């Protein structure tokens, strides 16, 4: 599908010295099948694709790696530390991920609560300090809390990733004000990660002026993941374009669009 996106004058997104043209990043989890995943990633237009580090299944090792289906020369692999509940675990997973030899980026997650999967910000700051010192480009998954975001930037994170709403919830952007505030105050890129449910959520999120958006379940758990991936691509572009265009002011009263003069007697 061709769109008018060529007419949008936008800067590319640069994170940790790497430049990306798509502002949509996608995950690789929870797809009904690998073929669907590959087609959905392609339809999303994403360049950055997240993966998790897990034990090899010793009985079925040949099929289980996601790299059998993705070409790391065409996409930028972003390893996460999902499932880690302590700074030490997240550091261990990040080191293992880097050893795979693709890049030194990590999407740092330190989870603090099993039910909500909300971040443990103390652990996050601790792990971030260590990993930045070790040369990692840290993209930190965090709450939509300004002070935590500022502290993460201070530790040297390459990007800060406030949530829209809890991971896998599909509740959309619950706190646009906080996300906007974080974007206004930080110098490093702000990528909203987690909670998007459908295309309008992606659009509203991008309209806040953030640099990018990362999602997984909204695409993977849609009835037609490939079609939803395309919708997300367009919504991300639309939201970004609307932000760049600058919206009209809100008014509490109506203002006619048609002339009030020249009406018949």
């Amino acid at each position, binding site marked *: 599908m061709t769109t008018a996106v060529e007419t949008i004058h936008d800067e590319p997104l640069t994170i940790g010295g790497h430049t990306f043209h798509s502002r949509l990043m996608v995950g690789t989890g929870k797809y009904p099948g690998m073929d669907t995943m590959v087609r959905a990633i392609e339809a999303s237009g994403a360049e950055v694709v997240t993966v998790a580090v*897990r034990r090899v299944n010793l009985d079925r090792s040949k099929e289980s*790696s996601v790299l059998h289906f993705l070409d790391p020369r065409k996409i930028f692999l972003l390893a996460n530390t999902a499932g880690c509940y302590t700074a030490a675990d997240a550091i261990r997973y990040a*080191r293992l*991920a880097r050893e795979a030899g693709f890049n030194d980026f990590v999407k740092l997650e330190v989870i603090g609560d099993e039910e909500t999967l909300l971040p443990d910000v103390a652990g996050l700051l601790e792990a971030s300090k260590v990993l930045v010192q070790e040369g990692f480009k840290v993209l930190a998954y965090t709450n939509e809390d300004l002070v935590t975001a500022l502290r993460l930037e201070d530790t040297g994170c390459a990007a800060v990733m406030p949530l829209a709403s809890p*991971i896998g919830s599909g509740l959309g952007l619950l706190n646009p004000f906080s996300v906007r505030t974080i974007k206004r105050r930080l110098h490093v890129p702000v990528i909203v990660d987690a909670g998007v449910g459908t295309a309008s959520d992606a659009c509203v999120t991008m309209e806040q002026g953030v640099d990018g958006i990362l999602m997984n379940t909204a695409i993977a758990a849609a009835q037609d993941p490939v079609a939803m991936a395309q919708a997300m691509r367009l919504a991300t572009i639309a939201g970004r374009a609307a932000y760049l265009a600058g919206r009209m002011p809100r008014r509490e009263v109506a203002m006619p669009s048609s002339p009030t003069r020249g009406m018949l007697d």
Partner: protein
Amino acid sequence: MDVVINGERRHVTAGATLLELLHELDLDPRAVVVEHNRRIVRRVGLAEVTVSEGDSIELVHFVGGG
């Protein structure tokens, strides 16, 4: 000789190197990352590290995730 691989006790050839162990498990050394007794062993070093009785080995790779 018994070692613990990915949390499971397994019988492997005594005196094997980590590289030989991966071959024994039919794993491509380029597709896995090896942690030996909590220390990451780089690919180039896999042939130089010998496995001993009771060692703990983690073999990881990338899977789908968000």
